[in-house]
Every structure is written in C-alpha cells, then in structure tokens.
C-alpha cells in the first residue's frame, strides 16, 4: 500500500475515535455513576501513565526517580505547570552531569 494512503487511513481512524464521543454526547449525562466515572478518569489515566513510565524514559532510572520526587514536591508546593515541568527536566539534566 502507498504510504500516504496508509497514513490517511490511520489518521481517519484515530480522528473518529476522538470525534464520535464528542458528537454523540452532546448533553450532560444524567446518570450519576457515569458522571462520577468520567470525573475520575483523568486522575487515574494520568497517574497510570506517569508511574513507572517516568523511571523508564531516562537511561538511568535514578534520574527518572529524582525527576519524579522533584516534580511531586514542586507540584505539592506550587502547582504551576511550567515550573513543575522545568524542575523535572532540570533534575534529569543535573543527574546526568553529576553521574
């Protein structure tokens, strides 16, 4: 198959996955369980994606662990998105320099 055709098929498939719920759930859900479920989805999803993946993305798991700790502390004290992201990066970079 032509690469461009394959890319188009894949892009359309992924787009549909994202679009259909937005199109079909146009009203606030009345069901209390479903509303609660969807309320908790982001917390679980993001937590699952963060740990232990953050330890595996850097070559040295220690750097990832330090980034995690630095990020947890910064987020706890001051939730600013940019600051937390930069702190995590700095932790990995400094660990790389020292080790």
């Amino acid at each position, binding site marked *: 198959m032509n690469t*461009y055709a*394959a*890319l188009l*098929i*894949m*892009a359309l*498939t*992924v*787009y549909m*996955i*994202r*679009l*259909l*719920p*937005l*199109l079909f*759930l146009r*009203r*606030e*859900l009345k069901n*209390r*369980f*479903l*509303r*609660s*479920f*969807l*309320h*908790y*989805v*982001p*917390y*679980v*999803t*993001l*937590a*699952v*994606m963060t*740990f*232990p993946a953050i330890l595996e*993305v*850097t070559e040295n798991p220690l750097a*990832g662990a330090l*980034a995690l700790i630095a*990020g947890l502390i*910064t*987020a*706890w004290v001051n*939730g600013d*998105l*940019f600051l937390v*992201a*930069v702190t*995590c*990066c*700095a*932790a*990995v970079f400094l660990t*790389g*320099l020292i080790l």
Partner: protein
Amino acid sequence: MSERQQASTSVISWLKRGLRDGFPICMGYFAVSFALGIAARRIAMTWLQAGLMSMGLVASAGEFAALVLLESHAGVIEMVSTCIVVNLRYFLMSCALSQKLSPELPLYHRFFLAQGITDEMFALCTAVDGWLVPAYSYGMMIISIFGWTLGTILGVLAGNILPAQVVAALSVSLYGMFLAIIIPPARRDAFIGGLVAVSMLASWLFSVLPVLRTITGGFKVIILTVLLAGAAALLRPLEDEHPETEQGGQS
C-alpha cells in the same frame, strides 16, 4: 463594553492562556517527537511523510505503532484495528471531555476540538473550571501540534544533532506536567490523593507481575482506568449538582 466586545476579549485572553499553558507541552512533545522522527527515518520515511503522520495522528504511542504497521506492510484491517486498540483511551477521554462542553456550543467546534484530544491537552482542558472555552484548546493545539510536527520532521532530517543529555531531560517534561495536574487536587482532596496513589501502585504492579507484564501500554491504561475510575465512582459518587454555567453568568 458591549457584550460582543467582551466576548472577543475573553476569547483572546483564553487563546493566550492556551498558548502559554501549551508551551511546556510543546517542549515535551518536541523531545518525544524528535525520537519518533529518528525512528521514522530508520524505516526510510521522508520528512514530509513523517510530518504528515504527526500532524494527522497526534499520538505518541499511536505513532510508534503506526511505524510498526508501515514497516510490516500491514493490511487495512490490521491497520485499523491496531489503531483503535492503541488509541482507545482517547475514546474515554473524549467521553469525559464532552461533559466539559456547553450544550449550547456550536457544533463545528466539536470537529476541531476532537483533533486536540491527546493525553496532555486533555489533562489541561479538564482542569479548567466550568465549561471549556474552545479558544483555550485552540491556543494549546496551535503551539503543541506545531512542536510535535516540527520535532518529528527535525528528527528525520537531523537525527543525532541534539546531545543525548538534552533529549533525556526534555523527555520527562511531559510527566512533570501530569504531576502538576494531578497533585494539587490530590493535596486538597484525600480521596483523589488515595486514588492517584492506588493508580500508580497498580500501574507499577502491571509492569512487574508475570502475565500482567505482557499487557501493552495502551491496554494497561484502558483496563486500569475502567477498573479504578469505576471503583472510585462507586465508592464516592459525585454530589448531584451541575457545573455552573460561566458564560453569560457574572459580568
């Protein structure tokens, strides 16, 4: 100020806020997509093909899967079904995001907003109070899809120019963002804090226990999200109140 003027000022300020909040996403995306570009180069994709792939799919794990499919010359059925499985979490996110959109929002916005449903942008969009203003999402999409696509293209063209240390450091910025989103609510609300801790623990168990370890990343996210968010909804359902309508409320 007339109502119309007021509305357009708030659109511009939301757009700016989206661009600002999208900046760390852009940085993180750049690092991840750079690695993606290097992988694309390995299977002999051109920079144009890789750039179009990133603009069209806007999905990290999804695009790594796409490379495998392209390399193995997979058929249409395998291609479509793999894409659905690997990206199924976006379906859940889209369901959740639908509840952040005002029922009065013009329909066409939904077609544009759909392309911006990624782990990171979803996280930010659900973190705003009240209804989501589409301009916020658009600001974020402009800067982060730009970074994602540019990173992929540069990865193809200049695979090994950035020092490995810098790439390694940039790659954790996405996780930093996730922490910035889940930790402050976890601090305010012990139930959410517990949920976050249990989620991380379960995720870790899934990566070390035999059998469970063989479940791929996309599936792990789906299984744990359904189980744990479902359990949380049973344990502590939301109060029966509806989100305040912000638009047209206070002036």
